[in-house]
């Protein structure tokens, strides 16, 4: 696990079993002023979640041992108020009702668009108003087929 500076600002936990995705996210968010906690394993992330509070949790979907949906369900149990986002390489595999059930507020699709990713995180953190209640969801590519509207 790597813990990125700065040591102030909203704390975000990102879980993905692909370390390259984590380091790409660290790059993208370097100047956004977040405390970025990253973990390659769900188990490690759960330990971390029981030891401190976060302002946002972002998780990959397909991971060994536990799916992103199952992990976010656990997160909801440990820290019910924390906003939750799911990242996926294949939107069709995740039913929308599942996402709603675990209270995920948006779906980020790989590969993501940098500006949309940053905006999605800001919105999830309540740092930026939601333009229209149905529009704030996907940080993925702009193709409408990959859009997922959750609210």
């Amino acid at each position, binding site marked *: 696990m790597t813990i990125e500076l700065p040591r102030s600002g909203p704390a975000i936990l990102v879980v993905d079993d*692909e370390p390259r995705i984590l*380091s*790409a996210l660290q*790059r*993208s968010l370097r100047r956004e002023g977040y405390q970025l906690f990253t973990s390659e394993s769900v188990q490690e992330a759960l330990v971390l979640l029981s030891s401190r509070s976060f302002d946002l949790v972002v998780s990959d979907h*397909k991971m*060994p041992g536990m799916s992103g949906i199952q992990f976010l369900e656990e997160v909801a149990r440990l820290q019910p108020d924390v906003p939750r986002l799911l990242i996926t390489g294949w939107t069709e595999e995740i039913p929308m009702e599942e996402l709603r059930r675990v209270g995920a507020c948006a779906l980020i699709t*790989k*590969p993501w668009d940098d500006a949309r990713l940053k905006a999605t995180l800001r919105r999830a953190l309540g740092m930026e108003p939601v333009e229209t209640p149905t529009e704030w969801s996907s940080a993925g590519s702009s193709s409408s087929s990959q859009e997922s509207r959750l609210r």
Partner: protein
Amino acid sequence: MEQRSIGLRQDLLRNDDSIIQNLNTAVLVVDLDGRIMSTNPPAEQILGESPAQLLGEPVARWLASSGEALVRSTLERGERFRAVESFLTLGDGARLPIGISWAPLMDADGQRYGAVATFQDLTGIKQLQNQVLQTEKLASIGQLAAGVAHEVNNPMGFIHANLFQMAEYVSDLRRVWEGVEALRKAAAQVDSEELRSVGAQLTALAEEADVDFVLSDLGKAIRESQEGSERIRHIVQDLRDFSHQDSGQRGMADVNQCVDSTASIVWPMMKHLVVLEKEYGEIPLVPGYAMQLKQVFMNLLVNAYQAIEERVGDTAETGTVRLTTRSDETGVFVTVEDTGTGIPEDRVSRIFDPFFTTKSVGNGTGLGLSTCYSIVQRHGGRIDVESTVGEGSTFQLWLPLEGSGDDD
């Protein structure tokens, strides 16, 4: 009573022809020379000839060579055949797929005096079968696309993000370089005051851009992206190997290659839950359609994965899929063994039936195994299953070295 029964039988014999004429099934009767002695309207309709054009003609005129061999065995040795698939050659040269049965005709002394055939036009059934095959092929392509898209999107995800960030790094470095240029100009003018001020600006620029970090991370971002693009290159290579030999033609198939390239394609989809064990023997090539065999292996592998997925559910357990190939003097054996849920005993006998599925709605067409069955049958082979609920299933395929499948 006895007398009455004999009388009835004689009536029946007299009416033989009228029974045949009124059957809704095509019937042909031939003598020992294979000449047509009797036909009925359904037979005349399928053959497209009038009774006058058929009677006395050698039946071989309308039979494909494989069909001719059947009637010869019946006439010469009294063999019976049930619902054998063959072809008729019609007057206009068209080939019509039929299912035909032959039985010898005996006189009262038990002497063969001819043979009777019943047959049906299989055109509609064949079209339906092709549609089913096509539907199942589309379903496999859907599964394949999902797996490949997922596997490509991971590296694409970070390559895409890294490229964006590397572009940012380059513009940061460009601003720093502009500071270096200004410093060079100032140095050329040997104006120490100017030099100091430009030097201070450059230091500020370099700090703002975080040059040390950018330079080290730029190299890292490039290396990681290179690794990602290498991964995508591998996936494309696997796809190429998988679709290799996709001429749709019958040829000599390398079963190990078929199994392995299919496993590579399906692997990304199952790797989170499955340990894959491979044991490939040194096996000969078998006559067949490589792409169709790959479709069979894909179905079996996806089923194995789904059975494991269903079994382990939300637990952190994994399952095992074991692929084995071996051969003996008769042919090649492929086994696909899983540690999944297993199939209840009352369902095992039905799993090769079309549209029979034990999967939940949306998880299967119910055509996968019936398609496997018909593909294996087309290769003249066999597919069997052994299964124990709670332990797993083993599918075994046998493909003969001497292909006896159809040659169309």
